[in-house]
């Protein structure tokens, strides 16, 4: 949880637009990603958008995995599929309940986390990192601006 808060806080101090329009001022360290913006949805998904690659890694939030309990199955979208924000792109089932995964942003699915097929529990152990679900090449990166910050996401369920 603390690392997630830290990343989001850093992301907010670097506005997306500024980063895109002036990439030259960013020091690029070989093998090291530069700007990753993390945004959330009310449906408990999180997107980590890498400004350099244009890819968004979609995960379910730590809070979501906590309320689901032990995940026993993850259904992932097909690589190459074109998704529109809000489309159902997968499903998660835990010992407690089934839940749907919706595309937080529009684009093309470039990669799915095949490890989850054999190790669905990874979603509990590392929901927003190793347990990522799929990577989407964003067709409209500005959609990131419409998503929630960590604070506003938390406000949706911390009533």
């Amino acid at each position, binding site marked *: 949880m603390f690392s997630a808060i830290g990343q989001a806080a850093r992301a907010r101090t670097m506005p997306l637009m500024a980063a895109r329009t002036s990439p030259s001022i960013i020091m690029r360290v070989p093998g090291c990603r530069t700007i990753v913006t993390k945004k959330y949805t009310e449906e408990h998904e999180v997107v980590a958008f890498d400004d350099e690659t244009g890819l968004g890694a979609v995960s379910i939030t730590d809070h979501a995995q906590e309320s689901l309990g032990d995940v026993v199955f993850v*259904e992932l979208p097909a690589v190459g599929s074109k998704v529109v924000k809000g489309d159902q792109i997968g*499903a998660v*089932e835990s010992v407690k309940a089934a839940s749907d995964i919706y595309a937080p942003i529009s684009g093309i699915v470039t990669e799915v986390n095949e490890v989850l097929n054999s190790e669905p529990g990874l979603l509990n152990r590392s929901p927003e990192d190793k347990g990522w679900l799929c990577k989407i090449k964003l067709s409209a990166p500005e959609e990131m601006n419409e998503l929630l910050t960590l604070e506003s996401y938390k406000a949706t369920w911390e009533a």
Partner: protein
Amino acid sequence: MLSARRLYTTASSASSVITPTHSIYLSTSTNPYFNLSFEDWLFRHAPQKEPLLLLYRDAPCVVIGRNQNPWKEVNFRAARAQSIPWVRRRSGGGTVYHDLGNTNFSIHVPRTTFDRGATAQVVLRAVRALGIDADVNERNDICVGGEKASGSAYKIASGRAYHHGTMLITTRLETLGDLLRVGKDTMITKGVASVRSPVCNLAQFSERVSHDTFVNAVVDSFKAEYGVYDEPCIVNDTDDLARIGYIQRGMAELPSWDWAFGQTPEFEYTIKKSFVWGDVTAHIHARHGVILSCTLQGLDSELGKALEGKRYGFVEDEELGVDMSGREEVVWAWLKEEMSSYD
């Protein structure tokens, strides 16, 4: 008896427009596609902070969990013989059988206060109020004398969650057994497997229990638990409800190949058969209802290759595009029978 009369005189006949703002709904439809779609509509449209109860019965059908494999869970042969359909529901869990002797309850609450133990207690209190000494097991299923009378499944969305379940009252348990008995031990499937349990009907334990008395008991228990005073809203698939786009789309989606078969998790099926000229082993790998590969040992043939990319259980002879030898024809007939979806 008094309470039964109370229920059926409070139908919402004053207005044909049914809103998702009532606390208690009773569906008199027995169409599983309608009831499941109506339930989903309530789940997505009712006020998120308010508890909601829906009760309904379905005509005979098999209902599999969201992430289950129908070829593994449903005895298609028995289902076809009795003209009983099967449906993939939207909640998790295992496969159940519905008929008019089974009453389904569905309790919706805000996601943040969702507690499977608490909703199970609401139903347990209803069963006990009917004079039956029931208990809840470690899986939150309601049991009588160690046998399950009820199976539960759950769904969680952004701000809402539900616990729905079956309650066996006078269900035909032999039919239930026939339809849910599938032999395919060599079919290895991802997703969720059903847990087989001995079952019983509530009517075995009390003469007082019927659909109506159970419905009334659950309504009373729900009202007491959540401090609700609303009378039940009675709905049917002939109401304007069935013209709501969301419900219509749900009713069209549930029986579609894309949902019913296409949502099947990845599976592998290895089968062997002895022919007069030798043994053949087929290894079929499928995902989302589509054959990814089929390898044949004991037969030199392009048949396996020709099946790639085809819908498992739905391959027509003409689709294969291979000139088949006598042996291939015999093997194909066997494979087709083994994959059969009887639809």
